[in-house]
């Protein structure tokens, strides 16, 4: 049989490529607005002139905003980490094994996505109050872990569905212990799923407002809470500046750390 000549991989993907470009434009268009208006002289949505006024305000006059931002970052990282661990292990258990309570777990683990946020917020607050758990960063982190878990679960399980189980069987046949199989076979092969789950968890946590509003304690403000409270009163151009810094920082990180990813993933 004649071998087909090698095709430039990107040629094959003209259709999907154009969908990708469309998505990128869709995602980044509002960001362009943000960036432009962060340099706006005035407060309103008409561009009156170029100015670094809001950046100055951001760096010299926004202690509370940075405090909220710091809280948000801590909460996001911790809750994403813990929920990824719990979710990944849970996905492995649920996908390959049958055991008592499996049906209960399957239904119950997905409920946090289904239940409306305000109900989750109020009920968790009532629960925390009934056990006298002081409200604050800890309760926010607990709540965030809880609603992140189903997302990680689903993503990792979808990934596991393509696993060639014979590799794992082979590992056992060769005498490997479970912990080694886990660390050296299962997890490495699931990394894109685990990373996707982790990223989803961070994204959800950074943006959560309703649940956080109810379970937060005095003094523990997060970025969404802060922004929401400013909604009625404006001064939002400072937020634009913060968003721009955040985006630019993350983009720089993403684009320059390709080597780091390769190292992490391989």
């Amino acid at each position, binding site marked *: 049989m004649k071998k087909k000549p090698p095709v430039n*991989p990107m040629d094959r993907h003209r259709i*999907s490529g154009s*969908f990708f470009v469309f*998505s*990128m434009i869709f*995602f980044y268009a*509002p*960001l362009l*607005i*943000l960036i432009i*208006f962060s340099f706006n002289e005035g407060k309103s949505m008409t561009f009156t002139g170029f100015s670094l006024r809001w950046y100055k305000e951001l760096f010299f006059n926004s202690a509370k905003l940075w405090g909220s931002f710091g809280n948000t970052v801590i909460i996001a990282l911790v809750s994403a980490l813990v929920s990824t661990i*719990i979710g990944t292990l849970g996905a492995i*258990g*649920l996908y390959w094994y049958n055991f008592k309570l499996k049906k209960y777990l399957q*239904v*119950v*683990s*997905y*409920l946090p*996505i289904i*239940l*409306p*946020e*305000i*109900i989750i917020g*109020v*009920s*968790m607050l009532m*629960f925390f109050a009934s056990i006298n758990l002081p409200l604050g960063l800890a309760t926010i982190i*607990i*709540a965030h872990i*809880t609603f992140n878990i189903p997302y990680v*679960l*689903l*993503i990792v399980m*979808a*990934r596991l*569905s*393509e696993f060639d189980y*014979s590799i794992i*069987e082979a590992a056992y046949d060769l005498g490997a212990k*479970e912990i080694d199989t886990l660390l050296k076979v299962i997890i490495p*092969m699931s990394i*894109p799923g685990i990373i*996707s789950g982790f*990223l*989803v968890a961070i*994204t959800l946590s*950074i*943006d959560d*407002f309703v649940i956080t509003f109810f379970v937060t304690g005095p003094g523990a403000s997060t970025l*969404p809470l802060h922004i929401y409270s400013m909604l009625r009163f404006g001064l*939002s151009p400072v*937020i*634009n500046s913060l*968003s721009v810094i955040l*985006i630019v920082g993350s983009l720089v990180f*993403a684009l320059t750390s390709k080597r780091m*990813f390769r190292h992490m*993933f391989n």
Partner: protein
Amino acid sequence: MMKNYGQRYTLPLLLWITVFFVIPFSIIFVGSFLKKGLYGGFELQFSLDAYTSLFSNTMRKVSINTIIISVITTIVTVLLALPTAYYMARSRYKETLLFLVIIPFWTNFLIRIFAWIAILGNNGLVNNFLINAGLLNAPVQLLYNRWAVILIMIYTSLPFAILPLYSTIEKFDFSLLEAARDLGATKPQSVYKVLIPIIIPGITTAVLFTFIPAFGNFAIPDIVGGTDIRMLGNIINEKLKTARNWPSASSISVVLTIMTTGAVILFTRLTAPKRAAQVKEES
């Protein structure tokens, strides 16, 4: 010999969800059968008021609205997400693209919506551009209707549909597609009959991640929905805060949960019979 580690793997999950979710949810479930406190909260008295009040015109109208918006959003989002995730999974720069897709969503949700209002609003960029170019005399109201809600929902759900699809497609062995081509299949046929069935779990996940948040959403209809578009999430909010009727907010949530869970179980069963066969054979 496969030892049953199932319980060990799922122990943290079991403990966490039971303590921090099932217990709070039980409070809501029980609360839905209680009487409304005068100023909110629950009165310890049995009452089915919260459930009988579900059969009203308002609830019917809002439920239908919610279902329609959620279904349209889900279909369009997943259709957009599939080719996008496919392209990402096959690219040399896949990890970078993954980050590029997610980073816009690390800016705050409210800020992004207001940026869309700045673009699509009556006094926004699109309208002003068209008026200045002489194509319009007066602004066209693009927002504050059902389509604005759907558009913004697609916008906010798309990354959550792309990520699970990416994760599943990335693992796919693409030489299978080439093999299908060699055996005479056309490109669409090979995609439809080889790729799609294997990434069904990713598609299911993308559908769930889009449909469920859309179904319970309140913020987006609130901000860009205008006067006519109200969804179940708005009703629940109002019951809880304005009307201070906690049992009613609870009963709507309970019914919403049961219906959504039922739909999820149904959908998962319909799309994954093949997987069950695979696992049985292997064990």
